[in-house]
């Protein structure tokens, strides 16, 4: 019977879905091998020879940025939480504006291989490089876990019956191979290609669905807003909502289920007669606070994600860095219009997803499942479109994971091996170290990915953003614009902000996991009493779930106070450093700075 098993197993798989997913994975491997032949030098591996053109680089950054959370998570969140979830795509896209306004140009002019390079160069402190390396690895691993989970879940969806870890291992192995073969240069081409796959995979099904089932505005209009007796649009066939779905007026209006969770839990703990008064007094102010904290976390977090920042070093010059950011904003801005449309249409036509299925939060599947609706009317077209969205989902985990892997591998091979362990190593040895580090990091990421099956994708992504927002963003912003910063100030602010954000978010996560009826609930049972505490203090819960509003301020405040206290330790050549960061590159100050440094080291 054994040989029959794969056949029976393949029969359950839609051939179109299989074909599209297979082509995406195969093309990724092929491009990796092809670019391996052209990537020769260390510079090719770490920063793609600093010669990536604006168009390629913008597509590659966008491809790297649009992760599993963007491709599947945003649509699912809009479907489950409504209006409040729109902040996610908007802030993901607009965080780039902050990067452009304050950080992109100066960072590129300073010209270093990695963020730890910048940290050391700006403060002349090898110790600070070590701290920065730890943060690159830390945030990186945090952000790889949700990508790995997305891969495992999608593969299990495409091939029903396949274990969760198989997807994690497959995607992890493919990307690790690519990074080890081609480094940054190879990955740039692959990611640029994957951006266009994702764009195609999200937009084409949306246009077809809208043409068949009614446009975006009609689907939003089918929901009753608060105070309306009837919804304005009634032209579409809407399926009855299931019990678990939020009501129309809560879903379409601001301050809905996402931001009022803590207050609602607190109200539920009160006697029934006190509830309406309590809700009327606290619900909206608290959810306004939640909204602001969320905005800060997402906007500052985007500007502080290490795998995005490292890309700026691949631009030929500062002007190109700015042009690239402009194009990234347009490319991801266009993309982010589409996932909410999936969520809105899904709410009207596939409400059964709200009930949730094993292994994946029901609404997260909306992008993959919605195109199958067309199969009833148009047969094979539905399968083809579903295949296209699955291919897009594959492209999403693969490209984000490859970017993370390059930045973490760069940190290990360049900063740890090349600067700390063996500074005397030559080019060839560093290349070997890069490949070795890629395999090592990829392996660790795969193992971590196998353990996070029970955690939610958006939870994990939010955590990575909150930590990046309160550590790297204050560091970069203040280092670039304030000459009075000292190494101690920078380190104190970055560590305090990052660690506070980590602890706060972890506290809310473990308390939620403690409520899980299954295995997770048993492991984290110790934290169950925390939920009673949250019910007493909803404000504290909001500040722990979305800590950015105080951790970013704390980090910047500490940086200022500690730097003032240690003002004598401002680097001696700070004026020159600031000139290199801000003066136009045509003045050639960078060359001068390097020569001075070499002369200085010679004494």
């Amino acid at each position, binding site marked *: 019977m054994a040989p029959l098993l794969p056949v029976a197993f393949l029969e359950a798989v839609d051939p179109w879905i299989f074909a599209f997913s297979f082509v995406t994975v195969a093309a990724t491997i092929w491009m990796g091998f092809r670019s391996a032949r052209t990537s020769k030098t260390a510079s090719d591996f770490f920063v793609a020879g600093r010669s990536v053109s604006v168009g390629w680089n913008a597509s590659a950054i966008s491809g790297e940025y649009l992760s599993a959370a963007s491709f599947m998570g945003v649509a699912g969140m809009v479907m489950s939480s409504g209006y409040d979830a729109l902040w996610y795509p908007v802030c993901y896209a607009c965080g780039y504006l902050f990067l452009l306004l304050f950080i992109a140009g100066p960072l590129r002019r300073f010209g270093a291989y990695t963020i730890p390079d910048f940290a050391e160069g700006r403060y002349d402190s090898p110790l600070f490089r070590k701290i920065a390396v730890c943060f690159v690895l830390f945030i990186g691993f945090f952000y790889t876990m949700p990508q790995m989970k997305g891969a495992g879940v999608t593969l299990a969806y495409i091939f029903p019956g396949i274990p969760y870890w198989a997807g994690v291992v497959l995607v992890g192995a493919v990307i690790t191979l690519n990074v080890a073969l081609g480094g940054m240069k190879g990955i740039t081409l692959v990611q640029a290609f994957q951006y266009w796959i994702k764009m195609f995979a999200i937009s084409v099904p949306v246009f077809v669905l809208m043409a068949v089932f009614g446009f975006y*505005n009609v689907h939003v*209009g089918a929901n009753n807003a608060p105070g309306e007796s009837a919804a*304005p649009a009634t032209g579409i066939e809407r399926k009855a909502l299931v019990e678990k779905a939020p009501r129309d007026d809560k879903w379409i209006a601001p301050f809905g289920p996402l931001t009022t969770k803590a207050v609602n839990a607190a109200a539920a703990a009160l006697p029934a007669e006190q509830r309406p008064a309590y809700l009327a007094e606290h619900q909206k102010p608290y959810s306004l606070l939640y909204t602001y904290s969320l*905005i800060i976390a997402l906007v500052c977090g985007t500007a502080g994600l290490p795998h995005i920042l490292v890309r700026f070093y691949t631009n030929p010059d500062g002007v190109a860095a700015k042009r690239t950011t402009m194009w990234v904003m347009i490319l991801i801005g266009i993309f982010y219009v589409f996932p909410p449309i999936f969520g809105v249409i899904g709410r009207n036509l596939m409400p059964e997803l709200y009930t949730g299925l094993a292994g994946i939060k029901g609404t997260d599947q909306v992008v993959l499942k919605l195109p199958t609706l067309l199969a009833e009317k148009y047969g094979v077209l539905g399968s083809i479109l579903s295949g296209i969205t699955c291919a897009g989902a594959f492209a999403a985990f693969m490209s984000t994971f490859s970017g993370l892997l390059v930045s973490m591998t760069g940190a290990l091979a360049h900063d740890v091996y090349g600067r700390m362990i063996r500074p005397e190593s030559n080019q060839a040895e560093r290349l070997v170290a890069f490949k070795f580090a890629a395999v090592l990091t990829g392996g660790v990421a795969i193992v971590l990915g196998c353990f996070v099956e029970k955690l939610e994708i958006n939870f994990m992504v939010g955590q990575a953003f909150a930590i990046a927002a309160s550590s790297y963003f204050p560091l970069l912003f203040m280092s670039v614009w304030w000459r009075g910063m000292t190494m101690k100030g920078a380190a104190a602010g970055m560590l305090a902000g990052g660690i506070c954000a980590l602890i706060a978010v972890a506290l809310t996560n473990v308390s939620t996991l403690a409520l899980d009826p299954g295995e997770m609930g048993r492991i984290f049972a110790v934290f169950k009493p925390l939920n009673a505490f949250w019910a007493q203090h909803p404000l504290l819960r909001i500040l722990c779930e979305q800590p950015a509003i105080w951790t970013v301020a704390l980090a910047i405040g500490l940086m200022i106070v500690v730097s003032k206290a240690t003002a004598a330790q401002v680097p001696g050549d700070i*004026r020159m450093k*600031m*000139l290199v960061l801000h003066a*136009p590159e045509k*003045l050639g100050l960078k060359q001068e700075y390097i020569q001075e440094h070499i002369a200085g080291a010679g004494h």
Partner: protein
Amino acid sequence: MPPPTPHEDRVHSEQFLHTLMRRQLKLSIACAAAFLVVLLGLPVANYLAPQLMATRVFGFTLTWLLLGVLFFPAVWAISWIFIRRSIWLEEDEVRSVKSLGEDR
């Protein structure tokens, strides 16, 4: 070491750095302010004028239309203006330094 030329003198002066950073920061802050007014103003508008923000426009509520659709073009406009100005600013700085070098 040869005596510094007036051109180098000027580039390395405290005043040049100060003006340079000030001009760039001013531009960045002006653009950021335009962006933050929209981003941080929208929740306030939702909070204070829920009725107005729930007005229907082509089936969307007003606030949904602003956040889910119109926000992106607004940000593109801000970044386009910023990039044009900032490239002009850099060229202007290079020009002013070069002209000083030629004067001598």
